[in-house]
């Protein structure tokens, strides 16, 4: 197989600062690696190599499979899942966040393992995949990677301290384990060995008193998905809505990009410096629900339907599109939450609508969302907005990424580190605007004395 990068070895290796945006999805994960030492803004989509062969797709299964006393991850897990005696663990991230909702399923977990453990191991596996790619990439600059990482979590989860703690712990533990010298590749790892790594990682993070800003480790997926919209030179300050339609969930948000003037009058600059979220709703409804509806009317499987929904719904009854209405409802709900903070029509006029995520390519859904008024009779349908293609997003070979970036926007957003991530005001931080009826008070004495 041809090498992606020309390797150069001249003298001592330098360090290259690379930051990984790790979008740990329910079904699939996506990885984007940002090079902070490149001359120009640049981040690369990671397409993993399996057994020396580069995959054709950047979607890495988030699946974990237990077979023959070993844990398997990613593509290998997908292969092994069909073998007899293999136990599949799907959507481990959601199960880790809400263990009480999946108590029954916990029974099939290996002894002394939790869904949180499996999630840590998935993140660790993804870190290893990224590291492999990062090393090859850095070598062309005669360098070794210095890797940092941020993972994502649903915005709703980060509003609750318990869930925030879980996600933060998962990210930090995986990163600590990743630092273990001589850590073997996780594929086919024995349960006992996995247990050891997890113990080591947990102990390490317990000992650490400082771990920096939690947002270095975990940020909201909704916010990350919008980071390109925020940074895009095509998008100015103003009010926007965004519906991010994924395979299993939809995140709808109403937010404002706020700018401020920095410098002396006439000699300063306008900076976009903040995102204020007025309403955010995350629901477990997505393209897979449309896919399942299609499966019910055809003899297809969900995997064969994915990406072909547009064509397949053509001759099916309208009820197949019922999930579209539910997706639209999340958008409506997000507005309703924002509306509670500001009930003036003028506050919501002329907003722009971003549609992102894989589902945004489904034209029926697009047009339904674009033509819908969230406040019938008061607000016209919004202006469709397109932030364009991120210029800094490159394919795994370093050339411009020309495919649809919709699926990658969360990982792309997470690949930004620190200052590049705007300050975010969540709905819970915004005080509802009280509209007070103006009253006319006349100070009679003054009034007459002035006369």
């Amino acid at each position, binding site marked *: 197989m041809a090498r992606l990068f020309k390797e150069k070895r001249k003298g001592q290796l330098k360090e290259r600062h690379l930051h990984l945006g790790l979008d740990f999805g329910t079904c699939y994960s996506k990885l984007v690696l940002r090079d902070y*030492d490149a001359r120009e803004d640049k981040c690369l989509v990671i397409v993993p190599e399996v057994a020396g062969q580069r995959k054709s797709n950047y979607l890495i299964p988030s699946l974990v499979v237990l077979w023959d006393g070993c844990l398997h991850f990613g593509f290998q897990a997908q292969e092994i899942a069909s073998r007899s005696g293999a136990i599949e663990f799907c959507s481990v991230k959601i199960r880790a966040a809400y263990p009480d909702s999946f108590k029954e399923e916990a029974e099939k977990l290996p002894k002394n393992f939790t869904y949180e453990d499996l999630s840590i191991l998935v993140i660790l596996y993804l870190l290893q995949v990224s590291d492999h790619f990062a090393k090859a990439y850095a070598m062309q600059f005669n360098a070794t990677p210095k890797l940092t990482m941020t993972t994502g979590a649903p915005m709703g989860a980060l509003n609750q301290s318990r869930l925030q703690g879980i996600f933060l712990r998962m990210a930090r533990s995986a990163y600590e384990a990743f630092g273990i010298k001589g850590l073997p590749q996780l594929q086919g790892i024995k349960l006992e060995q996995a247990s050891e790594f997890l113990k080591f990682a947990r102990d390490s993070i317990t000992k650490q008193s400082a771990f920096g800003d939690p947002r270095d480790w975990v940020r909201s997926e909704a916010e990350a998905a919008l980071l390109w919209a925020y940074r895009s030179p095509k998008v100015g300050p103003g009010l926007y809505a965004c519906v991010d339609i994924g395979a299993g969930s939809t995140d709808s948000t109403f937010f404002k990009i706020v700018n401020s003037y920095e410098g002396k009058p006439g000699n300063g600059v306008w900076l976009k410096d903040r995102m204020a979220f007025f309403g955010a709703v995350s629901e477990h409804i997505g393209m897979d629900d449309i896919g399942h509806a299609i499966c019910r009317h055809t003899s297809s499987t969900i995997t064969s339907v994915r990406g072909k929904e547009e064509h397949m719904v053509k001759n099916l009854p309208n009820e197949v599109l019922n999930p579209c209405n539910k997706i639209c409802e999340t958008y409506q709900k997000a507005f309703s939450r924002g509306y509670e903070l500001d009930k003036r029509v003028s506050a919501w006029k002329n907003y722009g609508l971003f549609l992102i995520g894989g589902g945004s390519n489904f034209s029926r859904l697009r047009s339904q969302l674009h033509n819908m008024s969230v406040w019938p009779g008061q607000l016209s349908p919004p202006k469709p907005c397109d932030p364009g293609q991120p210029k800094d997003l490159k394919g795994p070979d370093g050339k411009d990424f020309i495919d649809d970036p919709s699926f990658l926007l969360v990982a792309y957003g997470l690949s930004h580190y620190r200052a590049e991530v705007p300050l975010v005001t969540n709905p819970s931080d915004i005080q509802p605007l009280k509209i007070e009826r103006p009253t006319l008070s006349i100070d009679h004495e003054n009034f007459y004395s002035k006369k």
Partner: protein
Amino acid sequence: MDETAPPNIIFKPGDIVRRKRAPESVGVVKESTWSDQIKEWYCAVRFGTSLKTVPATDLELLPEHVDPWADLIQGSFAGAEAFQMLMTFERLHKPPTRISGSFGSAKAEFLPFQFKPLLKFIENPTGRLLIADDVGLGKTIEAGYILQELQARHPLERVLIVVPARLRRKWRDELERRFEQKFDVINIKMLQSFLRKLDSAREPDSFSWIVSYESVRKEPIFDGLDRHRPSIDLIIFDEAHRLRNPETYQHRAARALAGCADSMIFLTATPIQTGMDNLFHLLNLLDPDAFANLSTFGAQLEANRPVIKALSALRGTNPEPDLAKSSLIRLQENPLTKSLTEGSFFSSIIQRLDMSSSLSREEAVRLQRDITELSLTAHIISRTRKSEVLLNYPQRKPNSLKFIFSAPERRFYDAVADLCRLTGLTGRERNTWGQQMALIMAFRMTSSCIPAAVNYFRERSQQGEGILYSALLQKEDLDDNISEPMAIDDNASTPLTPATNRFEKILNDIAPPPGIDTKYDILYKALREIFEEDNRDGRPIRKVIIFSFFKRTLTYLSSRLAEKRIDHRLITGDIAILEREEIIDEFLSNQKIKVLLSSEVGSEGLDLQMSSVVINYDLPWNPMVVEQRIGRVDRIGQRSPVVIIVNLIASDTIEERILLRLYERIRIFEQALGEIDPILGETVEELAKEALSCQLTPEEEEKKVEQAAKAFINQAEEARKVSSESDTLIAADQAFLDEIESLFGHRRVPIPEELYKFLRSFIMSRYPGSIIPESVMNEVGEIHLQPQLSNDMQNLPTMDIDIQRVAHKILKGPFLATFSNMAILQHPKAELIFMRHPLLLFSVKCMEKEADRIHRGFSLIIEDTQRFDKGYYIFSINQFEIGGFRPRTELVPLFIRLKDKQMLDPENSEDLMVLMLEKPLTNEEFQNSSEFDIQNTKQRLQEIFQGVLKNLKDREIGLNKARAERRRATIEATLRGKVEAARRRLDDLKQKQAQPFAIKMSQDRYAAEQRRLDVFLSETGEDGIFSIESREIAIGILKVGGDIQ
């Protein structure tokens, strides 16, 4: 992992830093934060308007003095995008000549030769110029460039444009559409009111007026102007050959206006029609001191001959300096030119010619420019011949489709002709002029389109208004296209009862039944053939313009074409100009619309060169109108090699026997005839009338047509001969054109693509949310700019009203714009972004403030290796800002090939720099400079730079001194002449005890002229004003060929 305590912070908030790996990125540290993940400091740095995370290890404090060489030696360099941005900035900031800002500023095709008059005008201290270009080269645009340049330097308070009446609207529309200059067309009443204001001692307001010769040539008007001499910043006379007879009122009016004008421009294609005296009278109006009397003018021209010969010798690819020298030496023999040869200027030219056995193109151009200074006429005449600049102008291909009327059509046509003859032209009823005209129009309408004429006559009859109600007929159906509106006497409003009755009888008895229209059938067949031919040849469908003199004919044709589903549009003078432009936009841009139906007025002033087929549905009775119709498409910008002209003519009609015969004889359909004497128009009309009245036998008709044609041909031939002879006496302009073309060839001015990239990069980095799509580079597209930009533009301390205009436009929302002069032709209402556009001016002003921080060391790659040896080159691009009598900025690129340490010759260096501007790439691989011996090469380059500077200084100081000597004398004489004239005028007014206000105005003028002279004298020392400033604007390492190791 072990916990590590953070080491001390390296950068504090507010520190100005740059990236080591990309030193062009200079920013301000907002904060430094410790990363617990990798135990390192990261900084938040604001670059422009974006906040970025940068590892502290990649940052350094910005040095007080950025030394790009030192940076390059350390392997620190900027990339290709920064190089392009810097080079565009530098060329906008310090343009190569004083007139560069005007390049591409008109909504017209960009043609370098059209800037020649501007360059001459700016260099001529008298502020007078005769633009004598051939027909069709765009004299209006050339005058517009001068007007715009003067406006940009100093707002003009009063501008007057004097034109033939028929061209008033065209001028107003052209100036508005192409230059966004708003002018009012005024009539004699407004001139009278203006004079009354002066009479009552009130200060005249600012104005931008267009007025006709017919209005200013009235004696009270020009007497009044001469009496008050109101100060007018600029006066332009179009078709100035009208002024060549000093006996006429027009000439006297021009002389009075010349006394008021600060600057004055004459435009004519035929400054010489019958002899050199024509030219003299024009020059005498422009500069009475230099061209004082006719008797010496011939001697002046003769004395000029050696200069013209010398210039010719230096023109072309093989200049002959010896021939040039021997010609110039002859100037010493002529008493009129002897004084020119006595100064150091002349001897410096001879010396340069002596030294130049083989002249470089640049030096030949420089010499020509200096020799031009010796010409007695060159400073005041700018002349460009079509053959010099338009090598492939389209060929006209005429095709007259003759057809035979069907029997009913023939009967109707003959009946109307008889009626006109019997009742109007030769009958017993003695009709007024207006009534005669009405009859002729009825006849012409019938010739144009029988069904439209029948319908019209019937309508009038049913409304009971009388068919030949001449005043109404004229108002409704004639576009006032060729001359002043025809005077109509009072009797014209009387219905022609006998004619009306007979007309009604003709309509009832012999009008052809509906559905019979042989002419239309021929037209439809012709259109089909054109479209089928295009289909067959697989080329885009040609757009066709069908002209008719009558709106009724056009409306009728419109309904017939609609029946056949041929997409078309209709324009007439009834449609408001803005709406007409929209229709034209649609016609030109929509592929489906194949046909435009137009009256003369409808298309007046509009450029329709995107179409290449003209159909004359009827033939005008004036050859000038024929020329105007064809001229709409046969003009600069016509891309088709052939312009098809189709004439639809019924056999055995007056149109065939008189008009077509004469027009074919004088070959009007085949070639542009230049200025046509109005007499020919009158002759044609008389001939047609005579033929209509049946006063001529067929033989006589033929004879008369032949006589008229011969007279015209002789006159045209004579004019051509005289004009051609005059070229050997007055034409001396090639060097100006060469100079302008060299600026473009060597990319001394940024091309639209560079302007687009520069503006986009600037706006997008500072005003996010703005949208400037790439398509606007070549097409018209919508751009969206953030309101903050408008705010900042309005805060810019400038009085430039154009900046305010654009700032307001931004606030209104997205607007159409383009960087392409070609695209704007199809969408004239869009904003044209050129070098001096407010958006670019603003961007440059903002960047100026940060110029010290710009990184100027680059590492670039050029992959195209066809011409240059592969390998590494060290380069420096140097800017020389030269002040003095011919101020300019020169860019001098220097390259040293690393392989053999050889320096590239100037010509190759120029070409390599152009390649670098066109398609540079960043050389990311270059990190270790030790292989390149940069230190030594730098020293070598700087030595060469010093050598270039010394040579330039030696040459320019000497030349400037010599030029100063020559120019100072000329300018001083001109300014002193103006002071003297103003003083004489003042004395005269005082003596006549004129009104106090007139005396005050005259005093002001005298004071202004005196001030101008004083300033000039104080600013110019013995050696003239001279300065030269030089600096390296970019340096770096260039890799030619992508795959070398």
